[in-house]
Every structure is written in C-alpha cells, then in structure tokens.
C-alpha cells in the first residue's frame, strides 16, 4: 500500500485537472488538503506498522511494476519504507499538509487559486516519489519533478519579470547540479551493476576499494547534484531569488522539503560516501563554509524573506556538515527540526507580509507584537529554536551536529559551525526585533489594513510552534546507547556511524562544556542583537525627547554607539554586503551567465555556416567526406 502515499496527491492533481473548474475555490482547497492529509495518515499507519516490526526487518518495499528491464539492468517503480524514508515521508506529508491548509488562507484572494494547488499537489507527488523510491532512477524522476514544480511555483506570478527570471535561474542552476547526479548515477551503474539501493549498497564494499578514484568521483558528482538542489556553495544563488514565489511555496519547497533532498540523498547513499573519505571531507567543508558564509550574508539583508532564505542555505550547510563528519543521524535530525521551525518562520513571515499588505521590507515594519499576537508568539518560538536555545527543537539537533564535529576531530569545521551559531542568533533576533519590537515604522496604508491572519493560517502556525518546541525531545543528548531518534534510524546507518562511536568517546564533562559553549555563544548573538537594534536606538530617542539638556552626554553615549556601529556592526555589515554583491552577482551569476554566453557565442558562429547557399552546403558535405577518407588514410 506504500504506493498510495505518492498516488494520493497525484490523484488530486488529476481530479483538479479534470473537474477542478466545477469544484469552486472551496472544493479545490478541500481536495488538495484532503489528499495530502490522507497521505499523511496512510504514511503514519505504514510507519506505525514498520515500528511494530523487529528492528532488523524494518525495510518494506512495494513494487508497483517493472519500468524497464534490459538484460541485467532493471528499473522498477518500487517504493521503499525504512526508518529513514519514514522520517522523510512523515515530515513531507505532515509539514506539507499544514502548509496546504495555510495556503487556503494565504492564497484565498489569488486569481490562480486552482493552478496553485495543482502545482502544489504535483510537487507533493514528486517529493514523495523522491524520498520513497527504492532505486536511483525513480529517485531521479522525483528529483527532476520537484525541480520542475519548484520552477513552476517560483514563476507562479509570471507576470512579474523578476519571478519568471528567478524561476529560470533556479531551473538552470539545478540542471548544472543534475549533470552531476546523472553522471554519478551512470558511474555507479557502470561499476556497481545496479541502481537499486539495496543491491548497490550490498555490492559496493566489494566493488569499490575505499578511497578509490571511481567511488570518489561518483560520490563527488552525486554531491554536486546535492549542492544544486540543496543550495550549497557554489550553486546556492537560486534560492534567495526563489523567494519571488508565494510564501507558502518558500516554506514548503524552499525551506522544509525540496531543498533538503540533497541532504537526504547524501544520507541515503552514506554507504558510498563512507567508502570515499575525500568526498566526506568535501561535504563537511562545503557544508561548514556555506553555513558561515550564508549566515554572514543574512546579517545584511532587509527583505524578511531573503533573511530567511540565507538562513535556510546556512542551516542546510549544518546538515551537510553533519553528514560530512559521519554523523548522518544528526544531519537527518536537524533536517527534521529545521523543517518544523523554518516552515514556521516562513509561514509567520507570510502572515506578517499578509497583514501588512505585501510589505516585505524589515525597515518598514516594527512594533507588530501587540497587533499580531499569534504570529508574534509563534515566530518567537521559531526564532528561539533556530538560534539554538534549549529546550527548543533546534538546540538539540544543532548541538548534536557541533559535538559530532568536535568529536570527529574536525576542529576547524567545528569552529566554523560555532561562528555560524553566533551569526544565526544575531540575524534572527535582528529580524525578530525589527519586525515585532521597537517603534512601528509602517507605511500609512499598511497601518490602515493591519490585521491578524485568519484561523486557517494561525492553526498551522500553532501546530508548527508546538513541534518546534517539542520536536527536539526525541533526541536529547547523552543517552546511553543513543537517543530515541538515533535508535530509530540505527538500522539504516548501522555500522556506519563511526562518528557515533567517537561521540561517546568524549568525556561527559567535555560534552557538557560543548553544550554550554554553544548556548553561551547563541545567547551572545541574541544579546548583541538586542543591544544594537532595540536598546540603544530606543533609549537614545527617549532620552533625547525627555532631557534635551543632557543631549551632549547622550550624544556622547551615542558616539560610543556610533563607534561600535562603525567598527563592529558596520564592518560586519559592510563585509557581508560587499561579499554578497561581489560573490553573488559577479562570480556566481557571472559564471552561470558566462556559460550561457559561451554557448550563445558558439551558436552564433555556427549559424554563420548556415548561409542558405546550396553550394556552401555541398562544399561542407564534400569536406565531410574528405575528412572521413583522410581519417582512413592516416591508418
């Protein structure tokens, strides 16, 4: 019955296509949400059954039919449920369902309501195919499918040129990654003889020597695919631009699910990656570098969704970092908690944007806390979660990543991770303060229309907030024999978690120290944010109004602020901004466009041969024949 899970959203797509016009808005919304909700229930039932099985047998496959079979090569449309895909399926359908419900409110006034849910359901189908496939080929189908849906949804408001452009950029950058995926897949097939996970992973240790060129190349190519889909260096630029899409799309596709496909893929193929230490090191370094790099850019953004986008890139970096140091459980753990709090952040941001009549600039927000109480409360929970404050979900997973990195001996990676933590805490609280605290800086019109969002949007926020608080409790640190989440995933990563063993080698005191350190670092970031964005400007304004005689003193204090601002903040801002400007627009965009230009140049040159004169054509024909004969004469 596993096939039912992806089939339900697909059925909704087909129904929507066929009779969607007659259902009306309400019907379309019910259909879309109902299908995904049902898929969640089916998945839940399947997972509960899986959990009832003995640990060693927790792998269920469901072969729908044989797709193609050529001699020794066969590809099945076959779904796999093991602890790893169970986590993914539950996250995708669960978070997906909440976001579907939220969308019924958010998109209520959009002209293309039906088209939106059509794409959204199609995406759910593709994503579930991706995570539940039991072979690379079917996974690739889902992989391309989610890319296509993402492209359609980014360009959803296609009348905006920027949206169409962003959609195209996402598609092209993803295609570059796909080259890696396809080539990696082909190499694995050529040497491993199968594309089925179980068969391939079974033979892999015998076929590939540890650290051999073949497996290193193959895994690096696969990782290239992952960097494209999961927006890692150097292929991350499409994700911030993807914020042109509707906010629920950003939440579902560009935060909670699709962008984590790369992490899932690396975790799924951990058997292969562990045979290639060089690839694992690369994954760890790229992840760490992206985590810090994207976080530093996040410091300087003023668009609420862009801050969140860079934060997503950064958090994905943490997940890869975890995979890179061999802590796949931690990576998947963070994937799950991140899905909760990042979806919540985006949906909250969407609620704010909705309330402010499509205002996205943080500089024109402020003081929203009393006006949007639900949004404010849930956003605060999510912000604390992402900042890594206990006992919120993000703390547990991020802490596990950092301690794994430390325990695995990658101290430099660990330091980078720690630097990311302070920045994350800083920019997230900057966002929180600028949006919800301080004085309102709303435009008149936004002020006029300001309203709390409808229940269809608030309820999903509340549920996600609950998950963001409680979601981490499945994996508290320092459990004998690993925490519950690790024990659940153990059959998948069994024997592979050399980092897990190393993890316990760290003495208890050191572990406590690490936890304390990461919390302190996060708190430092938060404190800094409060100081810079809330306390001082507010105090300055207040004092200036009340005591004009003491203006000089205040001015003095203000100078300190200025100095501080000029040295620390502005420096960070400046570097971040110039980094963003230079790297993003020149290097990465330049490279992407450059490839385009080169090809177009070739194209233009080749066109010159097509003169339209028969004589020229015959000449080329003859030259071709002559070349063939010359080739023969050489031998």
């Amino acid at each position: 019955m596993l096939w039912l899970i992806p089939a339900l959203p697909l059925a909704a797509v087909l129904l929507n296509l066929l009779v969607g016009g007659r259902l009306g808005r309400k019907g379309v919304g019910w259909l879309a949400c109902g299908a995904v909700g049902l898929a969640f229930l089916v998945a839940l039932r399947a997972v509960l059954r899986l959990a009832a099985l003995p640990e060693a047998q927790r792998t269920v496959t469901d072969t729908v039919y044989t797709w193609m079979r050529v001699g020794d090569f066969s590809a099945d449309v076959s779904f796999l449920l093991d602890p790893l895909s169970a986590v993914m399926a539950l996250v995708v359908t669960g978070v997906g369902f909440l976001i579907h419900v939220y969308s019924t409110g958010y998109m209520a006034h959009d002209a293309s309501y039906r088209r939106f849910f059509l794409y959204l359901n199609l995406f759910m189908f593709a994503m579930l195919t991706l995570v539940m496939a039991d072979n690379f080929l079917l996974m690739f189908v889902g992989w391309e499918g989610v890319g296509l849906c993402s492209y359609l949804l980014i360009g959803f408001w296609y009348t905006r040129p920027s949206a169409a452009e962003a959609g195209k950029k996402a598609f092209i950058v993803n295609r570059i990654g796909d080259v890696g995926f396809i080539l990696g897949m082909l190499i694995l097939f050529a040497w491993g003889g199968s594309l089925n996970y179980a068969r391939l992973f079974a033979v892999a240790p015998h076929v590939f020597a540890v650290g051999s060129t073949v497996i290193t190349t193959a895994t690096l190519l696969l990782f290239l695919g992952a960097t494209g889909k999961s927006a890692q260096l150097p292929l991350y630029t499409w994700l911030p631009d993807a914020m042109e899409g509707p906010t629920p799309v950003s939440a579902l596709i560009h935060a909670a699910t699709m962008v984590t496909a790369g992490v899932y893929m690396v975790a799924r193929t951990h058997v292969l990656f562990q045979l290639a230490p060089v690839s694992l090191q690369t994954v760890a370094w790229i992840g760490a570098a992206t985590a810090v790099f994207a976080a530093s850019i996040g410091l300087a953004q003023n668009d609420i969704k862009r801050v969140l986008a860079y934060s997503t890139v950064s958090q994905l970096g943490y997940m890869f970092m975890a995979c890179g140091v061999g802590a796949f459980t931690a990576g998947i753990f963070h994937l799950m908690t991140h899905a909760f709090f990042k979806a919540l952040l985006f949906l909250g941001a969407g609620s704010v944007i909705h309330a402010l009549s499509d205002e996205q600039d943080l500089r024109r927000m402020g003081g929203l806390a009393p006006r949007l109480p639900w949004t404010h409360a849930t956003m605060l929970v999510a912000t604390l979660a992402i900042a890594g404050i206990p006992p919120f979900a993000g703390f547990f997973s991020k802490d596990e990543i950092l301690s794994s990195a430390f325990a695995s001996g990658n101290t430099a990676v660990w330091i980078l991770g720690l630097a990311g933590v302070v920045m994350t805490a800083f920019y997230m609280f900057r966002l929180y303060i600028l949006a919800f605290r301080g004085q309102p800086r709303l435009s008149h019109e936004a002020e006029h229309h300001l309203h709390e969002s409808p229940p269809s949007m608030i309820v999903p926020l509340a549920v996600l907030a609950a998950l963001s608080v409680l979601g981490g409790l499945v994996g508290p640190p320092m459990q004998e024999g690993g925490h519950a989440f690790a024990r659940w995933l153990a059959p998948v990563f069994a024997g592979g978690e050399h980092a897990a063993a190393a993890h316990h080698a760290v003495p208890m005191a050191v572990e406590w120290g690490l936890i304390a350190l990461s919390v302190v670092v996060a708190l430092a970031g938060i404190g800094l944010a409060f100081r810079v964005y809330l306390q001082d400007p507010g105090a300055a304004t207040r004092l200036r109004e009340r005591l004009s005689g003491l203006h000089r003193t205040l001015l003095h204090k203000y100078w300190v602020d200025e100095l501080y601002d000029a040295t620390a903040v502005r420096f960070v801002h400046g570097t971040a901004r110039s980094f963003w400007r230079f790297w993003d627009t020149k290097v990465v965009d330049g490279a992407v466009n450059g490839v385009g230009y080169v090809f177009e140049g070739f194209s233009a040159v080749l066109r010159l041969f097509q003169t339209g004169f028969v004589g020229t054509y015959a000449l080329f024909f003859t030259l071709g024949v002559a070349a063939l004969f010359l080739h023969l004469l050489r031998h």
Partner: protein
Amino acid sequence: MIAPALFAVFAAIAVVSALSVILQRNPVTSALFLVVTFCSLAGIYLVLHAEFIGMVQVIVYAGAIMVLFLFVIMYLNLGRDIETGLQIALRRGVGWLMGFALLAAGVALFRHPWAAGPPAPPGPPVGNTQAIGLLLYSRYLFPFEVTSMLLLVAMVGVVVIARGRRAPGPAADLPPGAATGAEPRGDA
C-alpha cells in the same frame, strides 16, 4: 590488353566532359557535353560486354532525354550568349562540313551492296538483352516494381510542380512577409 586501354580512353572522356558540363557557362554547350558523357559511358558499357545497357544508354539518355533537355533549354531561351562573327562563321563552317560528311557517308552506304549474313546459330548463347529481361522479371522483380512506383511518383511530382504555376488565388497565397527570393534563406 585492348579493353583496359579503351576503358581508360572512355573514362577520361567521360570525366573531362562531365567537368565541362558544370564549367561551361552556356547551357546548350553544357547539355551537349552531357551527351558526350553519356556516349562515353555507353562506350564503357560496351567494353564491359553490357551491350544492352550500352545501347539503352545511347538511345534513351543521349537520344531521347537529351533532346528533351535541349528542347527545354532552347524553349526557355536560356542560351543568350553574345557571340562574335568569327565564332558564328566557324560554327557554320563546321556545320557545313559535318553535313557534307554525313551525306557522303550515306551515299557510300547505299552504294555498297548489302547481302543478308548467315543466319544466327540457334540455341544456348542467350543474348544480353534476353538475360536482362529474365533477371528483371525474376530476381529483380521487386526492385523493378518499386522502380515503377518511383516513376509514378516522378510523374505525379512533375504534374504537381507544373500545375502550381497557376495555383488558386496566387495573390492570397503569398503571405505579407514572404521571402523575395533575392537572398537565399539561411540562419545568418
């Protein structure tokens, strides 16, 4: 020994005259060189003991088809080269000379007493033509029939192309942006 020599001669003539076909600017001259090419090809066939094909080559290609070609060329009045008096005089001279030669040959032929030769020996040595006929209707029946379809297509094609000259509503048929024909269409 004589056959290779003859082959070489005919082949050389064929190549040279074929080159002349495409190098000549005057279409009539080109067509006449094509006749030469066909005739030398017929010579090659004869050297190879393919008498039937050699004859067909002369009768059908050099004869019928080329006459049609020349007729069309002259009908369309394509050969409008300015010629000097000397060339015309030369050609006239050659024409007269050839005419007299033909006349002389005819007279000589008719004055010779032609007697019927001995009757051909009956039996086995099947003639070239007969062999071809047998093969055409047995082993090569299928390609032969397909070739007949080929000729049918050629005829239909000619009809289509010829009729197109007076297509219904010629003015309406041309779209506003139709190519003027001055430049060949290509990419550049």
